[in-house]
């Protein structure tokens, strides 16, 4: 920063030499080499000061963007259901891309402009004052007027900018949802309606954007008029001083240049204000996310257990789903006073109606949802008193939605630990009856799956997801209805072997099929969020 300011100081000498030159020209002198060379010399020094100075300021901007991305990413890794029901993926992506860019511009360019132009304004002011105090004071009354006008517009720019950025978020979210649900839309022949809906969003976005551009432009023009009128006062009064012999024509010219230098920050003020207002609203949007404290965290006095046996106790567990609307802040009930005792090594089937809380129960066991304290115990220890990493490394949940990453099958199956040998992966694939399917792919375990890979059927995805859970060989395994798209024969095959594989370890299976339940040691039926046990 100081380098830039040195550069500015050097720059301030320029009009002095120009004045010298003009005075000499006016006096009819040919000794112009000195002022011309002096300006040239200034140029070289200034060049050096600027190229280093600017670099440092801009690097700060890059550093800020880097840090924000890092923080945002880590922050998102820790968030729970309450957070994700409030911020959609499209919205978060828009924030991560656009808002961080705006903040970077504010820091890199805005700060530079603010300091640099502010400083050159002060220098110019000092030099002008030195040249003619009277002329300088002429400009003082004009300054607060710019300030107020600028501030009024700037405030509106902040709000408008917020609208534009939100508009982009909405637009992104709508596009993403549409493309993800394209089959449903086409099945119901809803294309035209979706296009209409999108047109409205896109139109609102263009309108908001136009308003922002209008305000920006109005600010620029206001500043232009303000600086023009200041120049006017100086030209009028300065011209009078020249004719009355008060100052030289060189001083007059130098003065006009200083004025330009001092007014530059005000003229550029439009850009600056816009950068700061847009950056400010972007920062507000980023901090809105960063301020959301992860709802599921390690308790301060959580301590790991040495050895996990795998017995589970659920005592009077009640859980309400969080509500994203303010009208019903208490949310809706999912589990109501559930109690269960599961001994280490048992295989339990959980049955229950749609919405009876089966998935909620499993999700509470791994703290994807946070159960109240004192309701769930693993080996006699309240799971809230265990570090999250230990809890989730000892209890594996295979979720209902078989999400696969855009990666190789091997990377997907051995997701928790990429360094596993291929043998272990084949083992898990075999246990999930996926081995023959994989062998049919030319690239076998290196076959790309996920969005851009081969299209797997619903049942194949479920089995890949199952393999990902089985490979971990955890003391406790939770299977959330992960045979729903698998045919009965295959299911039968997997389950009969699962029993041997999981011998001595605890397994909980949510299912709707009696065929699944048949393999369990015990069956638990959930009814309207209440536990009911069957032998």
């Amino acid at each position: 920063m100081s380098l830039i300011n040195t550069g500015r100081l050097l720059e301030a000498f320029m009009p002095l030499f120009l004045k010298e030159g003009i005075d000499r020209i006016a006096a009819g002198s040919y000794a112009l080499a000195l002022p011309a060379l002096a300006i040239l010399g200034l140029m070289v020094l200034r060049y050096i000061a600027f190229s280093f100075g600017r670099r440092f300021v801009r690097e700060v901007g890059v550093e800020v963007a880097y840090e924000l991305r890092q923080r945002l990413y880590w922050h998102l890794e820790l968030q729970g259901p309450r957070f994700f029901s409030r911020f959609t993926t499209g919205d978060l992506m828009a924030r991560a891309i656009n808002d961080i860019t705006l903040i970077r511009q504010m820091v890199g360019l805005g700060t530079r402009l603010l300091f640099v132009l502010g400083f050159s304004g002060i220098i110019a002011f000092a030099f002008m004052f030195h040249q003619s105090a009277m002329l300088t004071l002429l400009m003082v009354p004009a300054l607060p007027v710019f300030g107020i006008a600028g501030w009024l517009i700037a405030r509106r720019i902040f709000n408008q900018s917020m609208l534009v950025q939100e508009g982009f978020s909405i637009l992104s979210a709508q596009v993403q949802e549409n493309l993800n649900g394209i089959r449903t839309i086409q099945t119901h022949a809803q294309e035209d309606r979706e296009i209409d809906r999108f047109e409205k969003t896109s139109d609102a976005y263009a309108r908001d954007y136009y308003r922002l551009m209008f305000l920006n432009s109005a600010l620029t023009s206001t500043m232009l008029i303000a600086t023009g009128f200041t120049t006017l006062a100086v030209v009028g009064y300065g011209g009078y001083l020249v004719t009355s012999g008060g100052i030289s024509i060189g001083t007059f010219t130098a003065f006009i240049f200083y004025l330009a230098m001092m007014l530059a920050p005000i003229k550029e003020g439009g850009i600056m204000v816009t950068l700061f207002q847009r950056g400010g609203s972007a920062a507000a949007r980023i901090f809105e996310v960063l301020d959301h404290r992860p709802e599921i965290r390690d308790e301060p006095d959580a301590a790991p257990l040495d050895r996990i046996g795998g017995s589970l106790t659920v005592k009077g567990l009640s859980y309400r789903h969080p509500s994203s609307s303010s009208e019903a802040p208490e949310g809706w009930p999912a589990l109501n006073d559930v109690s269960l005792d599961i001994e280490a090594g048992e295989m339990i089937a959980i049955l229950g109606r749609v919405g009876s809380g089966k998935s909620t129960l499993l999700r509470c066991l791994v703290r994807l949802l946070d159960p109240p304290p004192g309701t769930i115990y693993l080996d006699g220890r309240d799971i809230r008193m265990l570090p999250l990493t230990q809890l989730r490394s000892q209890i594996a949940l295979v979720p209902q939605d078989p999400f696969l990453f855009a990666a190789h099958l091997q990377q997907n199956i051995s997701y928790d630990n990429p360094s596993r040998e291929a043998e272990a992966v084949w083992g898990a694939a075999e246990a999930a009856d996926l081995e023959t399917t994989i062998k049919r792919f030319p690239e076998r375990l290196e076959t790309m799956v996920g969005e851009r890979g081969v299209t797997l059927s619903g049942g194949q995805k479920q089995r890949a997801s199952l393999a990902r859970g089985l490979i971990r060989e955890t003391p406790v395994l939770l299977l959330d209805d992960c045979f729903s798209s698998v045919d009965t024969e295959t299911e039968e095959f997997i389950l009969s072997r699962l029993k041997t594989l999981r011998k001595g370890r605890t397994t909980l299976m949510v299912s709707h099929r009696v065929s699944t339940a048949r393999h369990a040691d015990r069956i638990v039926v959930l009814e309207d969020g209440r536990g009911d046990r069957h032998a």
Partner: protein
Amino acid sequence: MSTAERMTPEQEKPKRDYSVFEDDIETTGVDFALLGRLFSWMKPYKRQGFIAIGLVLLSASAAVLAPVVISRVVVDGILLPESGTVAPDFGQKALNGFLASSLSLHPLITACLLFALWTVCWAAFSHGFRIMLARTVLHALRDLRRDLFAHLERLPSSFYDRVAVGRVMTRLTNDIETLFELLAGFGVLLGEFVPFFVAVTVMLALDPVLTGELMVLLPIAAIATYIFRVASRRVYRAIRSSLSRLNENLQENLSGIEVVQLYGRERLNYDHYTSINRDNRAQENRAILIESFYGPTMDSMAFLAMSMIVWFGGHHVLGGAATLGSVVLFAQFADMMFRPIVAMGEQWNVLFRAMASSERIFQALDWDEALAEPARPIPLPEKLEGRVTFDRLTFGYSPGNTILRNVSFTIEPGEKVAIVGPTGSGKTSLIRLLCRFYDVPPGSILIDGVDIMQVLPAEIRTRIGVVLQDFHIFSGSVYENIALGNPAITRDAAERAARMVHADPFIRALPQGYDTVLTERGRNLSHGQRQLLAFARVLAMNPEILILDEATASIDTETEIVIQDALRELTRGRTSIIIAHRLQTIREADKIVVLTHGEVREIGSHEDLMALGGLYKTLYELQVQDVSGEA
């Protein structure tokens, strides 16, 4: 469930290269055809565009006249009246003289007024120019965005089977934003170039020799700009690619956040992201290093010009070839000379980016993959009888991979048919073909005797109701998710449908009942609840043919029995096709089709197939064991 193992282009269609949606497009040249095409979206707003150009001309003239007033009128005319030369003043002196005499004011005061007038004109016209330009560009891009969206919305399933949604999505969002930068940038260039030309004209008129001397600097500036662009191109490309990797990584991490957390991958993923972010930072800093040489170089040009003005201009004044006022004016214009080059340098970078963006946009817009539409579509009868015939249907998503082989069977009007078979046997493909998500060989599927290739795909879909295996819940209220914008489905109709599939109790238990807003993909509902909702959605449209593709897979037996009762009502006299794994559902069908490896293995009623003693009997007995096991 019988989705193709591997989806590649179909045999009879031209081979399409879907990988273009993967590649990072990098253009090195400026494609005028592409630009021209882009401009065609601005055509409807031609008038505003021309007004903008008119305004920029006016504003540039005012911008040049204001300093002329100071230099020629004030300095040459009033402060140094003895230096009267023939240099032009664009009538400003005469105008000022006229004003001074008619208003009987001191010429210095009227000169100030004149200066004020030009400044206000400058501010007003440039404001007008900027907002007219913004309006033109924003409207044009809004239209382009809508056209692209509408196009994507209508692309067939075969397209979405093969491309990543994220890559298509950025074309609608970020790429269009880049075009905004480009088109707004053209405006900036116009705003810099027009004053430049006006200024140069004025300078030439005042002192052609000095102007010529200053012009020497222009090629130097241009060369510096060129060198800079060449040096920075690779770095900018690296920045863009690291940015898109950052975004992709984040997006996938967000989509799979639950798996990430369950499998303890937070740290590992974070480390991976960090390495991309570091790479991005290094590239950004490299770009800054290059820019830090260039920026001050261009600034220095103005200084160089200034010292030339003092040196050469001074000598001209002393030699009587120029006035002091001209030198002052030149000094004021010195900055204006290089700004277009700087602006062009900046736009150059945007231009390349925008070329790549427009290429991506037009590539998507030109993607002409479509279902074959009949030249003269035959409308389906007013009221469908509901006879569906599969006639020697053979189909595969890719040449070497046949999914369905010579499938033939007929579903009589009002019949209820169950399709069973192991994973990968082609059940879902059969349904997708009937819904016309893909083209089928002519004459292979008939509805009421009409070849479905002769019917518009949209018409088929409005007549057939299908509960898909991979249905989607939209963000919006429960009611909106059932009605899906169909005005014929009233609130009552939606509630009736929900009651039929037994979804009503859980919907009523939600905080705002049918008005409860569901979040992205229905995350706040259980899987079974979502399935019931998708079920209700189809029933509400009261289709003439009903298809259920594992519609009850995530629904408990008890609820399913309730639904079965409703279904019995619903399917009475209505053709329906049901894919299910559960016995109870299958047994009630009038006809059961057993598919294996894409071929019809067995066909007949439950009793027929049991008597046959084939695959169906084996499957059935496996499940009967279960039932007895439960009892």
